[in-house]
């Protein structure tokens, strides 16, 4: 459903989400990233950052520091745990409108089964604990998706709720390599004057 900006009870629409604080929306399942960590994707991750460290680009230097191959930048945890945008047999774009959105996206809160359907979404804060670096050839994903908090709030951009989520970052063998706590704001944007 879409939040009615004029509705006086917009906060109450979030009550089912507030009631679900503590719930693991994944039931403990692991959602792996679309691809294994590989050298080319690491190189592309470095480019817009201009991040120049041989651990990420030079396999011999990485081995000299005790790693089996080049390492993924620590902050790549988010990128490498994202599921694919598209899968065989599915349609991604059904409109030629200039600003048309994909029919599926792993990053826009589309899979939240409770609460208002919102169109605005962005991350507000992130915390990590890193247990060890991830190397090229490994595949990582998220285990668990526990809702830690839900706080409805009206902000300068619209009405919605701040949500906090927790997951373990695991390899495809089940080893925990990091933990992540992510804050997001899911909201319905204000109507803006033409």
């Amino acid at each position, binding site marked *: 459903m879409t939040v009615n900006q004029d509705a006086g009870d917009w906060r109450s629409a979030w009550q089912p989400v507030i009631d679900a604080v503590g719930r693991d929306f994944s039931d403990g399942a692991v959602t792996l990233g*679309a691809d294994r960590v590989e050298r080319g*994707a690491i190189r*592309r*991750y470095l*480019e*817009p*950052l*201009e*991040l*120049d*460290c*041989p*651990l990420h680009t030079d396999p011999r*230097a990485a081995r000299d*520091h005790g790693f089996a191959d080049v390492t993924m*930048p*620590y*902050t*790549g945890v*988010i*990128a490498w745990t*994202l599921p694919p*945008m598209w899968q065989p047999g599915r349609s991604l774009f059904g409109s030629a409108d*200039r*600003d048309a*959105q*994909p029919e599926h*996206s792993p*990053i*826009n809160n589309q899979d939240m089964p409770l609460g208002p359907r919102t*169109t*605005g*979404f*962005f*991350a*507000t*804060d*992130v*915390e*990590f*604990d*890193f247990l060890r*670096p991830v190397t090229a050839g490994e595949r990582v994903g998220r285990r668990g998706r526990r809702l830690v908090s839900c706080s409805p709030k009206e902000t*300068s*951009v*619209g009405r919605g709720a701040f949500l906090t989520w927790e997951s373990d970052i695991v390899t495809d063998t089940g080893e925990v390599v990091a933990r992540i706590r992510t*804050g997001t704001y899911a909201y319905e*944007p*204000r109507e*803006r004057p033409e």
Partner: protein
Amino acid sequence: MTAVSRFFEDVKTDEELPPVAYPLPVYRLVMAAGANRDFNSIHHNTDYARATGAPEMYANTSLLLGMWERLVRDWMGPAGTITAIRGFRMRAFNTVGDTTWVRGRVLSTETDAGPGTVDIEVYCENSAGVTVGPGTVRVTLPLREAAP
């Protein structure tokens, strides 16, 4: 290239890390979206971003996190490890057409996490002020006494 590693014994509290500047043309934001897979239109489409209440398209989370990592990696070298990031909180949009600076300073070399651990305060700012943080990046550095 970040090839020389910093030793723990050489770090001083309040020491400032060399800041890093990130001019943010559309080009960098598009490269970042392709590289870190955050294709949300708010990060590469002005009209869409404005419709969601932002003044312009703006840098995505992974790009900003990577800026923090680069600041710290440039300073500590390849032998250092990052063990935690705290307080990475968005305070304002890092909009296209502006320059985001990443800055940091050593908060403490005496933590409860053992020898070699350093806490670094990191934040982003642009022409509007602080945009992300300040938060803390916890790293471990090699001990000179343990070096071969």
